[in-house]
């Protein structure tokens, strides 16, 4: 029986239903190619990628207690790594994904090493700085990234819409599974400990900044995987993919979905991407107004987000 917070004996039962629900959702998603046409399947694949990235941010913000406004930098690192690999090394999507994840880990170590020295709102602003510096780097290193017009002539992946959808679904399922395993595993518990009480963690012998850095690396790597999917879907990436608006969007998905969970932000991610496409098609320039209203309504009606539940608050 894992040690996570469950009321009395129903822990085993609830974990079972959660596994069942997860399996049911997976089966349903797997059936999508037979129910949706090419455009909507492509849209759903994009939504799933954003859902995975939102879940990775929830791991950082909700589970790790580290609010970030620069998470799109990892999307960018993953997307550019995959794009450059496709352009110069191999059209194999799996290898591109591995390179993207490695790039995500490296970027997380490089920037996280400094970021974890700050706390709370100042951590939020530090990640904002990292995100913006990443956008400038992508915009200005024209020879490598193609500058503001984006990385041109990335060879097609050779996967048709349905095959790509299977690939995206697999990556998202595995990525999400890794997040859940790590969250409930020993490392995840120490990350929760660092969130709850840093002084006590140090007294127990944990290198607290190291534990927080681990949280940044895990979230960064999974988000980079999502970034690779975003690039592979359209075989295109530009600095706008990692601008502050995207970091804000990811944070909103986490808050809408419920930051104490990982599945909530995943669903909110898919939902928001699909909703944006639907409202933009139907309402033209008014879609942004609808989205703003949605955020305001959700803050009041869903205090813990779509699927969040109040964590066992201190008495």
């Amino acid at each position: 029986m894992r040690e996570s917070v469950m009321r009395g004996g129903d822990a085993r039962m609830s974990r079972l239903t959660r596994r069942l629900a997860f399996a049911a959702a997976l089966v349903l998603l797997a059936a999508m190619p037979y129910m949706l046409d090419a455009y909507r399947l492509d849209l759903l694949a994009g939504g799933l990628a954003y859902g995975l990235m939102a879940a990775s941010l929830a791991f950082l913000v909700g589970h790790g207690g580290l609010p970030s406004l620069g998470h799109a930098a990892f999307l960018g690192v993953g997307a550019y790594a995959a794009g450059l690999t496709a352009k110069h090394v191999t059209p194999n999507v799996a290898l591109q994904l591995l390179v993207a994840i490695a790039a995500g880990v490296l970027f997380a170590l490089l920037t996280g090493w400094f970021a974890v020295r700050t706390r709370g709102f100042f951590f939020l602003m530090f990640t904002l700085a990292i995100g913006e510096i990443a956008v400038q780097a992508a915009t200005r290193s024209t020879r490598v990234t193609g500058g503001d017009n984006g990385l041109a002539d990335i060879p097609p992946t050779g996967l048709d819409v349905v095959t790509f959808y299977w690939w995206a679904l697999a990556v998202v399922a595995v990525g999400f599974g890794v997040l859940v395993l790590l969250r409930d595993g020993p490392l995840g518990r120490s990350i929760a400990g660092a969130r709850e009480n840093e002084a006590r963690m140090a007294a127990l012998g944990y290198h607290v900044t190291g534990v927080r850095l681990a949280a940044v690396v895990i979230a960064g790597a999974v988000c980079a995987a999502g970034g690779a999917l975003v690039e592979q879907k359209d075989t295109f990436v530009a600095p706008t993919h990692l601008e502050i608006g995207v970091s804000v969007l990811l944070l909103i998905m986490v808050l809408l979905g419920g930051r104490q969970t990982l599945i909530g932000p995943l669903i909110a991610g898919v939902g928001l991407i699909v909703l944006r496409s639907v409202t933009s098609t139907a309402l033209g320039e008014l879609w942004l107004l609808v989205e703003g209203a949605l955020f305001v309504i959700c803050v009041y009606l869903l205090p813990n987000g779509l699927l969040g539940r109040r964590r066992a608050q201190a008495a």
Partner: protein
Amino acid sequence: MLRLHELTMRFGALNAVDGVSLSVGEGERRALIGPNGAGKSTLFAMIAGALRPSGGTIEFDGQDVTGLPEHRRARRGIARTFQHSSLFAGLSCAENVALAVRARRGLGMRAWLGSGRNMDIKREVTGYLDLMELSEERPAGALSHGEARRLEVAMALAQQPRLLLLDEPAAGMSSAESARFAELIQNLDTTLLIVEHDLDVVFAVASHVTVLASGKVIADGSPAEIKASAEVERVYLGTAKEIWC
């Protein structure tokens, strides 16, 4: 095991701790008492690593640990409790103790997914919780003051320390609770350094007592000698007597 040499802590002009030297042998149960403002908590914090001394050295197992950060001292086997209990409020008692156990076992690769090893960790956690008579599931934030103090000790024990530092564990406890608490402490076999106001607990638990007054050691000896010493009485017990009557 623990040797302090001319340990000093200056806050501006005030010498909170002024050249304290003492040593605690293996298996000893040292109590540190003294009136308020004697520098007990400051000394405790310096030993635990939360405060960097202005002068003097701290030796543990023959190695100078004066500059070592708190988490490295914990790794070497120094565990501590907090005066104002500092727990993982949002996590269950079991999880609080599990974090302590896992800190000792290290976060090796296996620990990332370590479901296999979960079982014996769980057994160890249950052991410490039963020792301190605490239920596994209740969130630490929902515990009473007494229960919180006991969870602190359970977590410190879970680190299987070679030196256990107790910072006023009995503070805020009723006499019945503190008596029960003293019993629980007595049958621990680790080396102990306890800072405590409640003299019943001190004399029940300690094998050796050091008395501090305004940053200096004024007396050092067995509980019996300390009780009998006129010097201690004048400086310390005198004031304590007025409180009692």
